[in-house]
């Protein structure tokens, strides 16, 4: 088997940030920018005696999907849980800035081909949000990335991929929610306050973070797909995420942004109606919500393969 086929068959859940960055764009097209050789490690960690990484836990670069230049941001969960520090955040912002420059250039040089050459920013999240060792810089980085996402509106899509071990939590959960499209695998987890933090603050009766099944029912890919927080649910391989990205990029921009969860008055109303429903319904478990939206045999949903689930899932 060739190296590329091996990479595409690899589990997204277990892949490193660099493998994901290479594997989600077309074969051999990924070029890393501000990579390890540039040695952009955190200036804050050494004084605290914490290990540093030359890419600061964030792989950035550019590749192609068809003719689309795709700016990739890929977070490494094994390095401080993928937490966002100053350099890590600056690299995320840098990818957005380059994507915008690319958009302007294509618009000028290839005005007739803007649609088929439309750039994208793709973020492969694996993070708990702010890196507490550099908290202020980390928070600021979140705000800057949010700003950057706003700057892309009306121009080109920002797409989230969530299927790695750490999941996507904390401030980066907000960031993911603000992107145009979210693609998850059933192993992906998305939320704001992480399971351990809820347990710590509210007690084990409220949320038992050791209950893996509960954690996945509440934050996992299948639940997020039913709730339409995730737009697409794919199998856990780099190739499946790559194919889904390619399919998304084939659609016109106006269609892609229909996937958004926030960003218009109608969507705000929709979210508020959901909040009202949750008060009315007072669900005790995600299964109650699944049943409410018309899913039968909710006990079986966690056991289903992705294909089985997609065949029967009733979404909000």
């Amino acid at each position, binding site marked *: 088997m060739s190296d590329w086929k091996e990479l595409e068959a690899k589990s997204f859940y277990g892949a*490193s*940030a660099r493998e994901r960055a290479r594997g989600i764009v077309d074969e051999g097209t990924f070029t890393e920018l501000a*990579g*390890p*050789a540039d040695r952009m*490690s955190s200036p804050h*960690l*050494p*004084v*605290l*005696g*914490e*290990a*540093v*990484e*030359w890419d600061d836990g964030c792989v950035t670069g550019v590749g192609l999907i068809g003719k689309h230049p795709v700016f990739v941001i890929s977070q*490494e969960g*094994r*390095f401080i849980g993928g937490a966002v520090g100053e350099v890590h955040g600056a690299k995320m912002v840098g990818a957005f800035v380059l994507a915008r420059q690319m958009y302007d250039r294509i618009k000028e040089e290839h005005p007739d081909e803007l649609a088929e050459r439309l750039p994208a920013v793709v973020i492969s999240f694996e993070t708990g949000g702010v890196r507490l060792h550099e908290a202020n810089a980390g928070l600021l980085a979140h705000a800057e990335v949010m700003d950057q996402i706003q700057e892309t509106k009306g121009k080109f899509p920002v797409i989230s991929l969530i299927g790695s071990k750490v999941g996507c939590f904390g401030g980066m959960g907000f960031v993911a929610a603000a992107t145009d499209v979210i693609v998850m695998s059933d192993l992906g987890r998305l939320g704001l306050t992480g399971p351990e933090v809820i347990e710590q603050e509210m007690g084990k009766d409220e949320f038992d973070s050791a209950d893996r099944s509960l954690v996945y029912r509440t934050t996992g890919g299948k639940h997020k797909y039913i709730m339409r927080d995730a737009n697409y649910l794919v199998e856990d391989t780099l190739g499946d995420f790559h194919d889904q990205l390619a399919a998304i990029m084939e659609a016109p921009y106006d269609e892609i942004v229909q996937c958004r969860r926030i960003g218009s008055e109608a969507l705000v109303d929709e979210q508020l109606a959901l909040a009202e429903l949750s008060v009315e319904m007072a669900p005790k478990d995600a299964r109650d919500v699944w049943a409410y939206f018309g899913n039968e045999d909710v006990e079986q949903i966690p056991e289903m393969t992705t294909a089985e689930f997609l065949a029967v899932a009733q979404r909000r």
Partner: protein
Amino acid sequence: MALRELNFTFTPDEPRPFPVGWSHRGVVGSGDMEVMFEQRDLGGDVQIKVCTPVVGFDEVWERVLDRFVRESQVSDAVIEINDNNATPVVVSMRMRQAMEEARKEAE
């Protein structure tokens, strides 16, 4: 306690110059490390710089790295390591992997 930097220079008996411009491997996970090899004309020597939070194991580092150089005979390279409490076994394994892959790449 700040991060510490350890510096070593070794002279292999039958130097085999590092075959590619540079090579990077590994992730600085807990108990793991990343390593960067860079080709540099050092007249048959090899320099290794370790950046680590660990205190009190300088001699172990020297022994593990000395053995790696003796086994691989790698020369004319600057090798840098970002360590996060990797054990000697992990260090040896990561160094060997990085070296093998660089030599494979050069073929």
